């Protein structure tokens, strides 16, 4: 089993890359993912993340960070730890089987050009 996320330390220009001293125990504000609806009628789209202590603050922060230029009319936030993702290692098993089901696509069917409204 591969560990997908590992933590690394910093190295810079020609530096011997020993890394920084370990960070003190984390009192970091939780991380939130932000989704913005750019205008009525469109889906909320993932735009990035930010830190906040609760959902209300996350929405306010998202407003200040991600809608400074009228980019949105609605905001969703969800704490990052609550996002579940499909495993990229299983990508082939999950998504490749759809490849040969071309009959799901309208272009699969050969119909006379004269046929209208279909």
């Amino acid at each position, binding site marked *: 089993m591969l560990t997908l996320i590992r933590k690394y330390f910093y190295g810079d220009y020609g530096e011997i890359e020993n890394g920084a001293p370990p960070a003190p125990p984390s009192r970091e504000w939780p991380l939130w993912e932000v989704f913005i609806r750019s205008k009525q009628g469109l889906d909320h789209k993932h735009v990035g993340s930010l*830190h906040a202590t609760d959902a*209300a*603050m996350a929405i*306010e*922060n998202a407003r*200040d960070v991600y809608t400074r230029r009228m980019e949105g009319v609605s905001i969703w936030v969800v704490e990052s730890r609550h996002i579940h993702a499909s495993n990229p290692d299983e990508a082939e098993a999950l998504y490749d089987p759809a490849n040969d089901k071309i009959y799901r696509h309208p272009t699969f069917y050969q119909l006379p050009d004269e046929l209208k409204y279909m």
Partner: protein
Amino acid sequence: MNAESMIPNHNAVTDTTINAMLQLADDNLIMGHRCSEWCGHGPILEQDIALTNIALDFVGQARNFYQYAATILQQMPNEKALALVDFDMVPEQITEDSLACLRDAGAFKNHLLVELPNGDWAQTMLKIFFFSAYRFYLFQLLQKNTDTQLAGIAEKSIKEVQYHLKWSSEWVIRLGDGTDESKNRILKAMDTLWPYAGELFGPAKYELECYQLESIAFETLRVNWLEKVNQIFEMATLPAQSFTQWHQSGGKQGIHTEYLGYILAEMQFLPRTFPNATW
């Protein structure tokens, strides 16, 4: 007898309006100045951005009020306009910038509260909370003013003020009900700022006239404000407050704390060093 003296009230009304606009604008400008001092120094990136947004709102509102005053002044003969504003350097043209930069501390009409130093995050939050609550109730009244320009600016600004009030209230609650240290700090901020809160509700004559309000309206404003403060303080587990007889005042008459001089020295130095240059 010249033509102008035939409309006796006109001058007085204009004088009143200019003074009131400068009062509103000066409050905003100095608030904006103080908040902008935080830019790049906030406790966490997200809140640095949030506070800078608020600073931008303050500067934006200041510009609206100065521009309105400048428009009125530009429409009258220059000599008369200059007589209405206490410039200490005569501007080539009266603009938002000359109003902001070519008046000295004695001509500034902002409340003393806004010019006090930022102190720590607690003091800044409490100051924004006090000021925004005051502005929230005041602008509700100004929206109804027969001066459509003033009413329009108030209407536009109140949306911003509402957000500032919400944001700063939340911080007051968090700090009051956070750690022992944060509670001590907000209590200390309270001690520092409270003597300056009363001035918000002692209207100058020009304010009452321009805002078309009786003194009783400011009394109501004060009651509403105190109620709001105590409501938030209760949520913040902070002691309820009441007004005592004495409070600091003088800002509206141009008698300021020592801090304003330093603010202006910084803010005005370029336009004064290079008079009449374009930027």
